């Protein structure tokens, strides 16, 4: 196994399958044969998926289907869970990030994550955003740091709302603002990929609309993978969609195609509301 990626793509698995690829969109991450189990219980079975660069890829499926488990493989967040075992290959820019030799800490700076429930640190708004740059030494002085914080907050569409109270606690913001703060915090470490695990599930429709708009803008700069329970949201913001069912990847491809003429009847059933 000198080059596991090569074996995987040429022999066991067919070439990248995403519809978008046919149109020549570069692939940022490609997963091959990813299996995950918690103890004896297998949660993901042999997942092959390509994530197009600077696009929004939505992972949909009923609860417990493994979509969150999959997204957590992309930044090795599953390492934190005792007795969670991940196998297979996830290639990002020519490196198998599942390789134990790859530093998960460094990887997580490149692959940022936004969680289901907004989780700002119990620190000021400024310190929340400055946290990542500080630990990675991205700013050499206060002025640099101010610039990073300002830029990240503006990109997350939060600057105008908080510029007068940067030093008040981040936990004092509304739910939607907190979630945008968490996005700003993730952007501040200059990631290439941003993972979002149901980023709007704890928000009201207006805050949700703002985040969706933001996601749409962010895809200019970042590759975004999001888990969502809302079919409408997936249809609105994503360009590629993957449908998970009971730990299997059932359908993947261009969002329009998946939503209008899915190949698998389980996908059809889910998006029309018959299951899930």
């Amino acid at each position, binding site marked *: 196994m000198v080059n596991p990626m090569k074996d995987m793509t040429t022999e066991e698995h067919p070439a990248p399958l995403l519809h978008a690829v046919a149109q020549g969109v570069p692939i940022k991450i490609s997963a091959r044969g990813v299996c995950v189990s918690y103890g004896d219980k297998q949660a993901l079975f042999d997942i092959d998926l390509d994530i197009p660069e600077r696009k929004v890829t939505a992972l949909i499926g009923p609860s417990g289907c493994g979509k969150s488990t999959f997204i957590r493989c992309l930044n090795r*967040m599953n390492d934190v869970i005792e007795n969670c075992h991940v196998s297979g290959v996830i290639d990002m820019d020519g490196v198998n990030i599942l390789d134990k030799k790859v530093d998960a800490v460094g990887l*997580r700076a490149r692959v940022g994550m936004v969680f289901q429930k907004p989780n700002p640190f*119990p*620190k000021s708004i400024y310190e929340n955003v400055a946290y*990542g740059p500080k630990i990675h030494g991205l700013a050499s002085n206060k002025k640099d740091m101010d610039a990073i914080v300002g830029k990240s907050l503006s990109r997350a569409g939060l600057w105008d709302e908080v510029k007068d109270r940067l030093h008040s606690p981040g*936990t004092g913001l509304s739910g939607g603002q907190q979630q945008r703060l968490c996005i700003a*915090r*993730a952007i501040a470490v200059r990631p290439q990929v941003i993972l979002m695990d149901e980023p709007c599930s704890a928000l009201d429709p207006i805050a949700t609309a703002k985040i969706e708009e933001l996601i749409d803008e962010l895809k200019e700069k970042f590759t975004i993978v999001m888990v969502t329970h809302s079919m409408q949201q997936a249809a609105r913001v994503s360009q590629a969609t993957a449908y998970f069912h009971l730990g299997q990847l059932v359908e993947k491809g261009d969002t329009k195609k998946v939503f209008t003429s899915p190949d698998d009847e389980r996908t059809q059933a889910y998006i029309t509301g018959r299951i899930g």
Partner: protein
Amino acid sequence: MYVTLNPGNRKVVEGVILWILVLSSTIAILTTLGIVASLLFESVRFFKSVPLTDFLFGLEWSPQTAIRSDQVGASGTFGAIPLLAGTALISAIAMMVAGPLGLFAAIYLAEYSSNRMRSLIKPALEILAGIPTVVYGFLAALIVAPFLRSGGEGLGFEVSSESALAAGLVMGVMIIPIVSSLSDDVIRAVPQSLREGSLGLGSTRAEMISKVVLPAAFPGIVSAMLLATSRAIGETMIVVMAAGLAANLTANPLQAVTTVTVQIVTLLTGDQEFDSPKTLAAFALGLLLFLVTLVLNVIALRVVKNFREQYD
């Protein structure tokens, strides 16, 4: 058949239960009030014969008074400063041991240990908490103190056979479980989402702990430390056996010192007239001890409250 509208016995039972609960919760408060009242009452009697300022600021403690009027002897001096200094010295040594060790043990247990390690260490710490203090006391007096004495002499220090250091070290080990188990609880109470938030930004575990988890758990850790300090201040058996009776006013941990609790014990053991200043002094010391721990608890609450206001 519908459910009857007549409450009957069920309502009576409700009332009885309520009263049992109210009684249980107020007994502790009533007892505390009673104790404070009796301490105050006897202390007032003590301060009739010994001025309050002499007691609070006096630098000499020697409570021997003449038992019979025809006896020759000192009238007794009741300066509490040497006792307070001794208590503070020993508690400080104890906290220097228990603070870091207890906190580090808690961090390991809460953040690093596997479930298996945890199931080994947690009960071991609980056993440590279950050892009777009198056992710690003779450990301090018969093993640690002679060891420090011979070790110190080897290095050219003069160590008295009963030293603040021996008592403090052993007391420190004794209160490790208090610090570690309370800190473990508060560290584990920090939401997992904050840990993931930090790790998700590419922090190492140590960065996550020092910059996110410990600050979030800080109020709880402070109250754990202060609770442990209160315990150290009130501890009696170890100091009786290992710290000595000599009321030296010193900051040298190698010398014998005495503490408030030790003096209360010595004042009240033996044949004494109950209304002599010597006996009554015990109540004054008890009151003093109570006030010190009360102040510590109030400070702890303040710290926690300020911290909450800052972050919630």
